[in-house]
Protein backbone atom coordinates (compact mmCIF):
# COMPACT_ATOMS: atom_id res chain seq x y z
CA UNK A 1 0.00 0.00 0.00
CA UNK A 2 1.71 3.25 -1.09
CA UNK A 3 1.99 6.07 1.42
CA UNK A 4 1.55 8.80 -1.17
CA UNK A 5 -1.87 8.44 -2.71
CA UNK A 6 -3.50 10.59 -5.35
CA UNK A 7 -5.47 12.27 -2.55
CA UNK A 8 -2.24 13.21 -0.74
CA UNK A 9 -0.91 14.82 -3.91
CA UNK A 10 -4.18 16.67 -4.42
CA UNK A 11 -4.02 18.08 -0.90
CA UNK A 12 -0.40 19.18 -1.21
CA UNK A 13 -1.11 20.73 -4.63
CA UNK A 14 -4.06 22.65 -3.18
CA UNK A 15 -1.90 23.98 -0.32
CA UNK A 16 0.75 25.05 -2.83
CA UNK A 17 -1.82 26.67 -5.14
CA UNK A 18 -0.99 24.29 -7.99
CA UNK A 19 -3.45 22.96 -10.55
CA UNK A 20 -2.35 19.47 -11.56
CA UNK A 21 -3.89 17.21 -14.21
CA UNK A 22 -4.76 13.64 -13.32
CA UNK A 23 -1.68 12.39 -15.16
CA UNK A 24 0.56 14.84 -13.28
CA UNK A 25 -0.96 13.78 -9.98
CA UNK A 26 -0.09 10.15 -10.69
CA UNK A 27 3.44 11.07 -11.82
CA UNK A 28 4.15 13.09 -8.68
CA UNK A 29 2.59 10.48 -6.43
CA UNK A 30 5.07 7.95 -7.81
CA UNK A 31 8.04 10.34 -7.48
CA UNK A 32 7.16 11.39 -3.95
CA UNK A 33 6.71 7.74 -2.99
CA UNK A 34 10.27 7.03 -4.16
CA UNK A 35 11.64 10.01 -2.22
CA UNK A 36 9.88 8.80 0.90
CA UNK A 37 11.31 5.32 0.43
CA UNK A 38 14.77 6.85 0.34
CA UNK A 39 14.08 8.78 3.54
CA UNK A 40 12.92 5.57 5.21
CA UNK A 41 16.21 4.02 4.19
CA UNK A 42 18.08 6.87 5.89
CA UNK A 43 15.97 6.22 8.97
CA UNK A 44 17.65 2.84 9.31
CA UNK A 45 20.98 4.53 10.06
CA UNK A 46 22.06 4.51 13.66
CA UNK A 47 22.27 8.24 14.52
CA UNK A 48 22.75 7.85 18.25
CA UNK A 49 24.84 10.76 19.47
CA UNK A 50 24.53 12.73 16.22
CA UNK A 51 23.01 16.16 16.87
CA UNK A 52 19.95 17.24 14.93
CA UNK A 53 20.70 19.27 11.83
CA UNK A 54 18.35 21.83 10.33
CA UNK A 55 20.80 23.58 8.02
CA UNK A 56 23.18 22.23 5.40
CA UNK A 57 25.88 24.86 6.00
CA UNK A 58 27.86 24.90 9.25
CA UNK A 59 27.15 28.60 9.73
CA UNK A 60 25.73 30.27 12.80
CA UNK A 61 25.23 33.75 14.19
CA UNK A 62 25.25 35.71 10.93
CA UNK A 63 23.70 39.13 11.32
CA UNK A 64 23.78 42.80 10.42
CA UNK A 65 23.78 45.94 12.57
CA UNK A 66 20.57 47.95 12.98
CA UNK A 67 21.32 50.53 10.30
CA UNK A 68 18.76 51.99 7.90
CA UNK A 69 19.73 51.75 4.23
CA UNK A 70 17.90 53.43 1.33
CA UNK A 71 14.71 51.77 0.10
CA UNK A 72 13.68 51.48 -3.52
CA UNK A 73 12.12 54.31 -5.46
CA UNK A 74 8.36 53.78 -5.45
CA UNK A 75 7.98 54.12 -9.21
CA UNK A 76 10.45 51.30 -9.54
CA UNK A 77 8.57 49.23 -6.93
CA UNK A 78 5.28 49.60 -8.78
CA UNK A 79 6.71 49.44 -12.31
CA UNK A 80 5.64 45.83 -12.86
CA UNK A 81 2.37 46.06 -10.94
CA UNK A 82 -0.54 45.53 -13.37
CA UNK A 83 -2.93 47.91 -11.60
CA UNK A 84 -1.24 50.27 -9.11
CA UNK A 85 -3.42 52.79 -7.28
CA UNK A 86 -2.50 55.52 -4.79
CA UNK A 87 1.03 54.16 -4.39
CA UNK A 88 -0.33 50.69 -3.60
CA UNK A 89 -0.59 47.37 -5.38
CA UNK A 90 -4.25 46.94 -6.33
CA UNK A 91 -5.79 43.51 -6.67
CA UNK A 92 -9.36 42.31 -7.30
CA UNK A 93 -11.47 41.73 -4.20
CA UNK A 94 -10.04 38.93 -2.11
CA UNK A 95 -13.19 37.20 -0.88
CA UNK A 96 -15.76 35.91 -3.39
Amino acid at each position, binding site marked *: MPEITRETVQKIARLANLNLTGVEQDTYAGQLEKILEYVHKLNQLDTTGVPQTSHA*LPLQDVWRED*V*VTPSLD*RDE*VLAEAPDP*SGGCFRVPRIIE
Partner: protein
Amino acid sequence: MSIDYEIVVGLEVHVELATRSKIFCGCSTQFGAEPNTQVCPVCLGLPGTLPVLNREVLNLAIRAALALNCELAEHTKFDRKNYFYLDSPKAYQISQFDMPLAKNGYLDITSPNGAVRRIGITRVHMEEDAGKLLHAGQGGQIGNATSSLADYNRTGVPLIEIVSEPDLRTPEEAYLYLTGLKEILEFSKISDCNMEEGSLRCDANISVRPLGQAALGTKAELKNMNSFKNVRAGVEYEAKRQIRLLNEGGRVVQETRAWDAEKGVTRSMRSKEEAHDYRYFPEPDLPMILLTADMVETVRETLPELPQAKRVRFQTQYGLNEYDAGVLTATSELAEYFEAAAMGTNPKAVCNWLTVELLGRLNVEGKTIAESPVKPGQLNALVKLIESGELSGKLGKQVFAEMAEKGEAPQVVVKRLGLAQISDVDSLKKIVMDVLAANPGPVAEYRGGKAATLGFLVGQIMKVSRGQANPQKVNQLLREELEP
Protein backbone atom coordinates in the same frame (compact mmCIF):
# COMPACT_ATOMS: atom_id res chain seq x y z
CA MET B 1 -30.55 23.87 37.47
CA SER B 2 -27.73 25.94 36.16
CA ILE B 3 -24.04 25.05 36.30
CA ASP B 4 -21.33 27.48 37.40
CA TYR B 5 -18.78 28.02 34.68
CA GLU B 6 -15.16 29.06 34.84
CA ILE B 7 -13.64 31.28 32.13
CA VAL B 8 -10.27 30.21 30.72
CA VAL B 9 -8.28 32.72 28.68
CA GLY B 10 -4.85 32.68 27.06
CA LEU B 11 -3.48 35.69 25.20
CA GLU B 12 -1.22 35.96 22.17
CA VAL B 13 0.40 39.36 21.99
CA HIS B 14 2.35 40.68 19.02
CA VAL B 15 4.78 43.45 19.85
CA GLU B 16 6.70 45.60 17.41
CA LEU B 17 10.33 45.92 18.47
CA ALA B 18 11.90 49.37 18.74
CA THR B 19 14.51 49.02 16.00
CA ARG B 20 15.42 51.55 13.35
CA SER B 21 15.51 49.05 10.48
CA LYS B 22 13.47 45.97 9.58
CA ILE B 23 14.23 42.46 10.78
CA PHE B 24 15.89 41.10 7.63
CA CYS B 25 16.76 44.20 5.55
CA GLY B 26 17.81 47.81 6.02
CA CYS B 27 14.45 49.46 5.23
CA SER B 28 13.22 51.94 7.81
CA THR B 29 10.52 50.94 10.33
CA GLN B 30 9.32 54.53 10.78
CA PHE B 31 5.53 54.66 11.08
CA GLY B 32 3.41 56.83 8.81
CA ALA B 33 5.45 56.95 5.60
CA GLU B 34 3.77 57.11 2.18
CA PRO B 35 2.70 53.61 0.99
CA ASN B 36 5.45 51.42 -0.45
CA THR B 37 8.28 53.89 0.15
CA GLN B 38 10.02 51.72 2.76
CA VAL B 39 10.45 48.55 0.75
CA CYS B 40 13.33 46.79 -1.00
CA PRO B 41 13.88 43.54 -2.89
CA VAL B 42 14.27 41.58 0.39
CA CYS B 43 11.01 42.64 2.07
CA LEU B 44 9.15 42.55 -1.25
CA GLY B 45 10.16 38.90 -1.50
CA LEU B 46 11.77 39.28 -4.92
CA PRO B 47 13.52 36.14 -6.18
CA GLY B 48 17.24 35.84 -5.52
CA THR B 49 17.30 37.97 -2.37
CA LEU B 50 18.59 36.81 0.98
CA PRO B 51 17.48 37.89 4.45
CA VAL B 52 20.09 38.82 7.09
CA LEU B 53 19.03 39.07 10.74
CA ASN B 54 19.16 42.48 12.43
CA ARG B 55 21.32 42.02 15.55
CA GLU B 56 19.21 44.49 17.53
CA VAL B 57 16.10 42.34 16.99
CA LEU B 58 17.85 39.47 18.75
CA ASN B 59 19.02 41.78 21.56
CA LEU B 60 15.54 43.20 22.19
CA ALA B 61 13.90 39.77 21.97
CA ILE B 62 16.37 38.37 24.51
CA ARG B 63 15.71 41.37 26.73
CA ALA B 64 11.97 40.71 26.55
CA ALA B 65 12.48 37.03 27.35
CA LEU B 66 14.60 37.93 30.39
CA ALA B 67 12.13 40.58 31.57
CA LEU B 68 9.40 37.91 31.39
CA ASN B 69 11.46 35.40 33.38
CA CYS B 70 11.78 32.94 30.49
CA GLU B 71 14.29 30.17 29.90
CA LEU B 72 16.32 31.03 26.80
CA ALA B 73 17.05 28.35 24.23
CA GLU B 74 20.65 27.40 23.57
CA HIS B 75 19.91 26.98 19.88
CA THR B 76 17.16 28.79 18.11
CA LYS B 77 16.20 28.97 14.44
CA PHE B 78 13.73 30.55 12.05
CA ASP B 79 11.07 28.65 10.11
CA ARG B 80 8.86 29.41 7.16
CA LYS B 81 5.14 29.55 7.80
CA ASN B 82 3.54 29.06 4.39
CA TYR B 83 0.28 30.69 3.37
CA PHE B 84 -1.12 32.52 0.38
CA TYR B 85 -2.47 35.95 1.17
CA LEU B 86 -1.95 39.41 -0.22
CA ASP B 87 -0.30 40.69 2.97
CA SER B 88 2.76 38.51 2.39
CA PRO B 89 4.51 38.97 -0.94
CA LYS B 90 6.76 35.94 -0.33
CA ALA B 91 3.74 33.68 0.35
CA TYR B 92 5.37 32.75 3.64
CA GLN B 93 6.17 34.46 6.89
CA ILE B 94 9.56 33.99 8.52
CA SER B 95 8.70 33.01 12.08
CA GLN B 96 9.84 30.48 14.68
CA PHE B 97 8.11 27.15 15.12
CA ASP B 98 9.61 24.30 17.12
CA MET B 99 12.73 26.02 18.47
CA PRO B 100 11.51 29.38 19.77
CA LEU B 101 13.86 31.86 21.38
CA ALA B 102 12.46 31.37 24.88
CA LYS B 103 9.94 29.34 26.89
CA ASN B 104 8.43 28.90 30.36
CA GLY B 105 8.33 32.42 31.74
CA TYR B 106 5.82 34.24 33.87
CA LEU B 107 4.30 37.60 34.64
CA ASP B 108 2.82 38.48 38.04
CA ILE B 109 -0.39 40.47 38.07
CA THR B 110 -1.86 42.22 41.10
CA SER B 111 -5.62 42.50 41.49
CA PRO B 112 -7.07 45.68 42.97
CA ASN B 113 -7.62 43.72 46.22
CA GLY B 114 -3.85 43.17 46.42
CA ALA B 115 -3.81 39.46 45.52
CA VAL B 116 -0.90 38.46 43.28
CA ARG B 117 -1.41 35.85 40.55
CA ARG B 118 1.41 34.34 38.49
CA ILE B 119 0.49 34.01 34.80
CA GLY B 120 2.60 31.56 32.82
CA ILE B 121 4.27 32.59 29.57
CA THR B 122 4.42 29.65 27.19
CA ARG B 123 6.86 31.11 24.70
CA VAL B 124 8.45 34.20 23.17
CA HIS B 125 9.51 34.07 19.55
CA MET B 126 10.72 36.42 16.80
CA GLU B 127 8.97 36.93 13.48
CA GLU B 128 8.35 39.44 10.72
CA ASP B 129 5.21 41.53 10.37
CA ALA B 130 2.96 41.36 7.29
CA GLY B 131 1.89 44.16 4.96
CA LYS B 132 -1.10 46.43 5.42
CA LEU B 133 -4.21 45.94 3.32
CA LEU B 134 -6.85 48.50 2.54
CA HIS B 135 -10.11 47.15 1.27
CA ALA B 136 -11.52 49.70 -1.11
CA GLY B 137 -15.30 49.76 -1.26
CA GLN B 138 -18.20 50.42 1.05
CA GLY B 139 -17.20 51.08 4.64
CA GLY B 140 -13.68 49.61 4.22
CA GLN B 141 -15.17 46.21 5.08
CA ILE B 142 -13.57 43.29 3.33
CA GLY B 143 -16.95 41.77 2.46
CA ASN B 144 -18.12 44.88 0.58
CA ALA B 145 -14.77 45.60 -1.06
CA THR B 146 -14.51 45.86 -4.81
CA SER B 147 -10.72 45.76 -4.71
CA SER B 148 -7.87 45.62 -2.20
CA LEU B 149 -4.76 47.79 -1.92
CA ALA B 150 -1.46 46.52 -0.53
CA ASP B 151 1.15 48.65 1.22
CA TYR B 152 4.30 46.69 2.12
CA ASN B 153 5.98 49.28 4.38
CA ARG B 154 5.12 47.14 7.40
CA THR B 155 6.26 43.91 5.78
CA GLY B 156 9.40 42.75 7.59
CA VAL B 157 8.99 45.02 10.60
CA PRO B 158 10.33 43.01 13.57
CA LEU B 159 7.87 41.49 16.03
CA ILE B 160 7.98 39.25 19.01
CA GLU B 161 4.99 37.08 19.79
CA ILE B 162 4.36 36.48 23.48
CA VAL B 163 2.03 33.55 24.18
CA SER B 164 0.55 33.14 27.65
CA GLU B 165 -0.62 29.94 29.28
CA PRO B 166 -4.42 29.60 29.61
CA ASP B 167 -4.03 30.92 33.17
CA LEU B 168 -6.30 33.94 33.04
CA ARG B 169 -9.70 33.45 34.69
CA THR B 170 -11.57 36.72 34.29
CA PRO B 171 -11.80 39.55 31.73
CA GLU B 172 -10.23 41.81 34.36
CA GLU B 173 -7.21 39.49 34.70
CA ALA B 174 -6.72 39.65 30.93
CA TYR B 175 -6.75 43.44 31.22
CA LEU B 176 -4.26 43.44 34.12
CA TYR B 177 -1.96 41.04 32.27
CA LEU B 178 -1.88 43.34 29.24
CA THR B 179 -1.25 46.50 31.24
CA GLY B 180 1.51 44.71 33.19
CA LEU B 181 3.07 43.42 29.98
CA LYS B 182 2.93 46.85 28.34
CA GLU B 183 4.55 48.45 31.36
CA ILE B 184 7.47 46.00 31.27
CA LEU B 185 7.97 46.35 27.52
CA GLU B 186 7.90 50.14 27.67
CA PHE B 187 10.19 50.35 30.67
CA SER B 188 12.72 48.01 29.10
CA LYS B 189 12.55 50.05 25.87
CA ILE B 190 11.71 46.88 23.94
CA SER B 191 8.77 48.54 22.19
CA ASP B 192 6.98 51.88 22.21
CA CYS B 193 3.75 49.84 22.64
CA ASN B 194 1.77 52.41 20.65
CA MET B 195 -1.65 50.79 20.18
CA GLU B 196 -2.83 53.33 17.59
CA GLU B 197 0.15 52.53 15.39
CA GLY B 198 -0.34 48.78 15.88
CA SER B 199 2.87 48.32 17.90
CA LEU B 200 0.99 46.03 20.27
CA ARG B 201 -1.76 43.69 19.10
CA CYS B 202 -3.62 41.02 21.00
CA ASP B 203 -5.62 37.89 20.17
CA ALA B 204 -7.43 35.93 22.86
CA ASN B 205 -8.16 32.22 23.13
CA ILE B 206 -11.33 31.90 25.16
CA SER B 207 -13.13 28.84 26.51
CA VAL B 208 -15.40 28.00 29.43
CA ARG B 209 -15.72 24.85 31.54
CA PRO B 210 -17.89 23.73 34.44
CA LEU B 211 -16.25 24.84 37.69
CA GLY B 212 -14.02 22.05 39.00
CA GLN B 213 -13.57 20.34 35.64
CA ALA B 214 -9.91 19.84 34.68
CA ALA B 215 -10.30 19.39 30.93
CA LEU B 216 -10.45 22.57 28.86
CA GLY B 217 -13.57 23.45 26.92
CA THR B 218 -13.59 24.10 23.17
CA LYS B 219 -12.01 27.47 22.51
CA ALA B 220 -12.74 30.33 20.17
CA GLU B 221 -9.97 32.63 19.00
CA LEU B 222 -10.97 36.26 19.26
CA LYS B 223 -9.35 38.87 17.02
CA ASN B 224 -9.69 42.53 16.14
CA MET B 225 -9.46 44.04 19.61
CA ASN B 226 -7.50 47.26 19.25
CA SER B 227 -7.40 48.38 22.88
CA PHE B 228 -7.03 46.73 26.28
CA LYS B 229 -10.55 47.84 27.14
CA ASN B 230 -11.79 46.10 24.02
CA VAL B 231 -9.96 42.92 25.06
CA ARG B 232 -11.72 43.05 28.42
CA ALA B 233 -15.11 43.70 26.82
CA GLY B 234 -14.53 41.11 24.07
CA VAL B 235 -13.50 38.37 26.50
CA GLU B 236 -16.48 39.14 28.71
CA TYR B 237 -18.95 39.01 25.84
CA GLU B 238 -17.47 35.88 24.29
CA ALA B 239 -17.40 33.95 27.59
CA LYS B 240 -21.04 34.87 28.26
CA ARG B 241 -21.97 33.82 24.75
CA GLN B 242 -20.36 30.41 25.24
CA ILE B 243 -22.00 29.89 28.64
CA ARG B 244 -25.40 30.82 27.25
CA LEU B 245 -24.85 28.44 24.35
CA LEU B 246 -23.95 25.57 26.70
CA ASN B 247 -26.86 26.30 29.03
CA GLU B 248 -29.20 26.12 26.06
CA GLY B 249 -27.89 22.66 25.26
CA GLY B 250 -25.70 23.83 22.38
CA ARG B 251 -22.00 23.35 21.91
CA VAL B 252 -19.07 25.68 21.24
CA VAL B 253 -17.47 25.39 17.81
CA GLN B 254 -13.73 25.92 17.45
CA GLU B 255 -13.45 28.97 15.23
CA THR B 256 -12.00 32.43 14.79
CA ARG B 257 -14.29 35.27 15.82
CA ALA B 258 -13.97 39.02 15.46
CA TRP B 259 -14.84 41.60 18.10
CA ASP B 260 -17.17 44.30 16.82
CA ALA B 261 -16.47 47.20 19.17
CA GLU B 262 -19.32 49.32 17.81
CA LYS B 263 -22.02 46.71 18.35
CA GLY B 264 -20.26 45.16 21.36
CA VAL B 265 -20.55 41.61 20.03
CA THR B 266 -18.29 38.90 18.62
CA ARG B 267 -19.11 37.31 15.29
CA SER B 268 -17.77 34.36 13.39
CA MET B 269 -15.17 35.19 10.76
CA ARG B 270 -15.46 33.41 7.45
CA SER B 271 -13.18 30.42 7.96
CA LYS B 272 -10.33 30.09 5.51
CA GLU B 273 -10.85 27.59 2.74
CA GLU B 274 -8.10 25.38 4.12
CA ALA B 275 -7.72 24.35 7.70
CA HIS B 276 -4.53 25.75 9.27
CA ASP B 277 -1.81 23.84 7.54
CA TYR B 278 1.20 26.09 7.34
CA ARG B 279 3.72 23.36 6.43
CA TYR B 280 6.43 24.90 8.59
CA PHE B 281 9.97 24.04 7.64
CA PRO B 282 13.37 25.44 8.67
CA GLU B 283 14.23 28.70 6.89
CA PRO B 284 17.24 27.65 4.78
CA ASP B 285 18.38 31.24 4.17
CA LEU B 286 18.97 32.03 7.83
CA PRO B 287 21.54 30.08 9.80
CA MET B 288 20.97 28.71 13.25
CA ILE B 289 21.52 31.03 16.22
CA LEU B 290 23.59 29.84 19.14
CA LEU B 291 22.80 31.80 22.29
CA THR B 292 25.93 31.78 24.42
CA ALA B 293 25.83 32.57 28.13
CA ASP B 294 27.99 35.62 27.35
CA MET B 295 25.50 36.97 24.88
CA VAL B 296 22.60 36.55 27.28
CA GLU B 297 24.53 38.10 30.18
CA THR B 298 25.47 41.11 28.05
CA VAL B 299 21.80 41.70 27.37
CA ARG B 300 20.85 41.05 31.00
CA GLU B 301 23.15 43.91 32.01
CA THR B 302 21.18 46.28 29.79
CA LEU B 303 17.91 45.20 31.38
CA PRO B 304 16.65 48.14 33.40
CA GLU B 305 15.02 47.87 36.76
CA LEU B 306 11.42 46.81 36.17
CA PRO B 307 8.47 48.92 37.39
CA GLN B 308 7.51 46.67 40.31
CA ALA B 309 11.06 46.70 41.71
CA LYS B 310 11.40 50.43 41.12
CA ARG B 311 8.22 51.18 43.07
CA VAL B 312 9.55 49.29 46.06
CA ARG B 313 12.98 50.95 45.86
CA PHE B 314 11.50 54.47 45.59
CA GLN B 315 9.72 53.83 48.88
CA THR B 316 12.74 52.46 50.74
CA GLN B 317 15.51 54.60 49.22
CA TYR B 318 13.68 57.93 49.06
CA GLY B 319 11.18 57.46 51.85
CA LEU B 320 8.24 58.15 49.53
CA ASN B 321 4.77 56.78 50.18
CA GLU B 322 3.26 54.08 47.96
CA TYR B 323 1.10 56.56 46.08
CA ASP B 324 3.94 58.91 45.16
CA ALA B 325 6.20 55.98 44.24
CA GLY B 326 3.44 54.76 41.91
CA VAL B 327 3.04 58.17 40.27
CA LEU B 328 6.78 58.62 39.75
CA THR B 329 7.26 55.15 38.24
CA ALA B 330 4.36 55.41 35.80
CA THR B 331 6.85 55.77 32.94
CA SER B 332 10.59 55.22 32.77
CA GLU B 333 11.06 58.83 31.61
CA LEU B 334 9.33 60.22 34.70
CA ALA B 335 11.27 57.90 37.02
CA GLU B 336 14.56 58.95 35.42
CA TYR B 337 13.59 62.62 35.70
CA PHE B 338 12.83 62.23 39.39
CA GLU B 339 16.06 60.44 40.21
CA ALA B 340 18.13 63.04 38.38
CA ALA B 341 16.29 65.88 40.11
CA ALA B 342 16.50 64.28 43.56
CA MET B 343 20.25 63.78 43.45
CA GLY B 344 21.90 65.17 46.58
CA THR B 345 18.81 66.90 47.93
CA ASN B 346 15.52 66.29 49.72
CA PRO B 347 13.64 63.65 47.65
CA LYS B 348 10.24 64.38 49.20
CA ALA B 349 10.55 68.05 48.32
CA VAL B 350 11.56 67.13 44.77
CA CYS B 351 8.60 64.73 44.60
CA ASN B 352 6.21 67.53 45.64
CA TRP B 353 7.57 70.05 43.14
CA LEU B 354 7.52 67.42 40.44
CA THR B 355 4.07 65.89 41.02
CA VAL B 356 2.21 69.02 42.11
CA GLU B 357 3.80 71.94 40.25
CA LEU B 358 5.49 70.46 37.19
CA LEU B 359 3.15 67.60 36.24
CA GLY B 360 0.15 69.84 36.88
CA ARG B 361 1.54 72.43 34.48
CA LEU B 362 2.54 69.81 31.87
CA ASN B 363 -0.94 68.26 32.02
CA VAL B 364 -2.57 71.61 31.32
CA GLU B 365 -0.23 72.18 28.38
CA GLY B 366 -0.64 68.61 27.11
CA LYS B 367 3.10 67.96 27.29
CA THR B 368 5.06 64.89 28.35
CA ILE B 369 7.87 64.97 30.89
CA ALA B 370 10.38 64.72 28.02
CA GLU B 371 9.03 68.04 26.71
CA SER B 372 9.28 69.76 30.09
CA PRO B 373 10.74 73.29 29.90
CA VAL B 374 12.23 72.72 33.38
CA LYS B 375 15.08 70.23 33.17
CA PRO B 376 15.87 67.82 36.04
CA GLY B 377 19.12 69.67 36.90
CA GLN B 378 17.19 72.96 37.15
CA LEU B 379 14.54 71.53 39.48
CA ASN B 380 17.35 70.02 41.54
CA ALA B 381 19.02 73.45 41.82
CA LEU B 382 15.72 75.08 42.82
CA VAL B 383 15.08 72.60 45.62
CA LYS B 384 18.66 73.04 46.82
CA LEU B 385 18.21 76.84 46.97
CA ILE B 386 15.10 76.38 49.10
CA GLU B 387 16.60 73.69 51.31
CA SER B 388 19.68 75.83 52.03
CA GLY B 389 17.49 78.78 53.00
CA GLU B 390 18.70 80.98 50.17
CA LEU B 391 15.17 81.10 48.81
CA SER B 392 11.91 80.98 50.72
CA GLY B 393 9.31 78.41 49.71
CA LYS B 394 6.91 81.16 48.74
CA LEU B 395 9.42 82.86 46.46
CA GLY B 396 10.33 79.38 45.18
CA LYS B 397 6.93 79.18 43.50
CA GLN B 398 7.48 82.50 41.81
CA VAL B 399 10.92 81.37 40.61
CA PHE B 400 9.46 78.06 39.42
CA ALA B 401 6.80 79.86 37.37
CA GLU B 402 9.53 81.92 35.67
CA MET B 403 11.61 78.77 35.05
CA ALA B 404 8.66 77.00 33.44
CA GLU B 405 7.83 80.08 31.41
CA LYS B 406 11.31 80.90 30.11
CA GLY B 407 13.26 77.64 30.58
CA GLU B 408 15.81 79.47 32.73
CA ALA B 409 17.92 78.04 35.55
CA PRO B 410 16.68 79.08 39.03
CA GLN B 411 19.91 80.96 39.82
CA VAL B 412 19.35 83.06 36.70
CA VAL B 413 15.75 83.85 37.67
CA VAL B 414 16.74 84.71 41.24
CA LYS B 415 19.42 87.08 40.01
CA ARG B 416 17.25 88.66 37.33
CA LEU B 417 14.37 89.34 39.72
CA GLY B 418 16.65 90.12 42.67
CA LEU B 419 14.86 87.52 44.78
CA ALA B 420 17.71 86.00 46.73
CA GLN B 421 16.94 85.64 50.40
CA ILE B 422 18.77 88.15 52.52
CA SER B 423 20.76 86.19 55.07
CA ASP B 424 23.80 88.36 55.72
CA VAL B 425 23.61 89.91 59.15
CA ASP B 426 24.60 93.47 58.19
CA SER B 427 21.87 93.89 55.59
CA LEU B 428 19.28 92.28 57.83
CA LYS B 429 20.29 94.37 60.83
CA LYS B 430 19.79 97.54 58.82
CA ILE B 431 16.25 96.52 57.89
CA VAL B 432 15.49 95.46 61.46
CA MET B 433 16.71 98.76 62.88
CA ASP B 434 14.71 100.75 60.31
CA VAL B 435 11.53 98.87 61.13
CA LEU B 436 12.06 99.25 64.89
CA ALA B 437 12.63 102.99 64.45
CA ALA B 438 9.45 103.34 62.39
CA ASN B 439 7.31 101.43 64.93
CA PRO B 440 7.99 102.85 68.41
CA GLY B 441 4.49 101.92 69.64
CA PRO B 442 4.69 98.17 69.04
CA VAL B 443 8.28 98.12 70.30
CA ALA B 444 7.12 99.64 73.57
CA GLU B 445 4.23 97.13 73.76
CA TYR B 446 6.62 94.23 73.29
CA ARG B 447 9.00 95.52 75.92
CA GLY B 448 5.96 95.99 78.15
CA GLY B 449 5.33 92.23 78.02
CA LYS B 450 3.04 91.78 74.95
CA ALA B 451 5.03 88.95 73.32
CA ALA B 452 2.60 88.57 70.40
CA THR B 453 3.75 91.93 69.01
CA LEU B 454 6.91 90.20 67.83
CA GLY B 455 4.86 88.59 65.01
CA PHE B 456 3.73 92.01 63.82
CA LEU B 457 7.30 93.28 63.71
CA VAL B 458 8.49 90.21 61.80
CA GLY B 459 5.66 90.81 59.31
CA GLN B 460 6.77 94.42 58.84
CA ILE B 461 10.35 93.32 58.18
CA MET B 462 9.24 90.71 55.64
CA LYS B 463 7.13 93.35 53.93
CA VAL B 464 9.99 95.83 53.72
CA SER B 465 12.32 93.14 52.39
CA ARG B 466 9.70 91.97 49.86
CA GLY B 467 9.73 88.50 51.43
CA GLN B 468 13.45 88.09 50.95
CA ALA B 469 14.60 88.30 54.54
CA ASN B 470 15.57 85.00 56.08
CA PRO B 471 12.81 84.53 58.73
CA GLN B 472 14.94 82.57 61.21
CA LYS B 473 17.66 85.18 61.19
CA VAL B 474 15.12 88.00 61.45
CA ASN B 475 13.64 86.40 64.56
CA GLN B 476 17.06 86.00 66.09
CA LEU B 477 18.11 89.60 65.39
CA LEU B 478 14.83 91.03 66.66
CA ARG B 479 15.12 89.22 69.96
CA GLU B 480 18.70 90.41 70.35
CA GLU B 481 17.66 94.02 69.75
CA LEU B 482 14.55 93.94 71.90
CA GLU B 483 15.84 92.03 74.89
CA PRO B 484 17.08 94.38 77.59
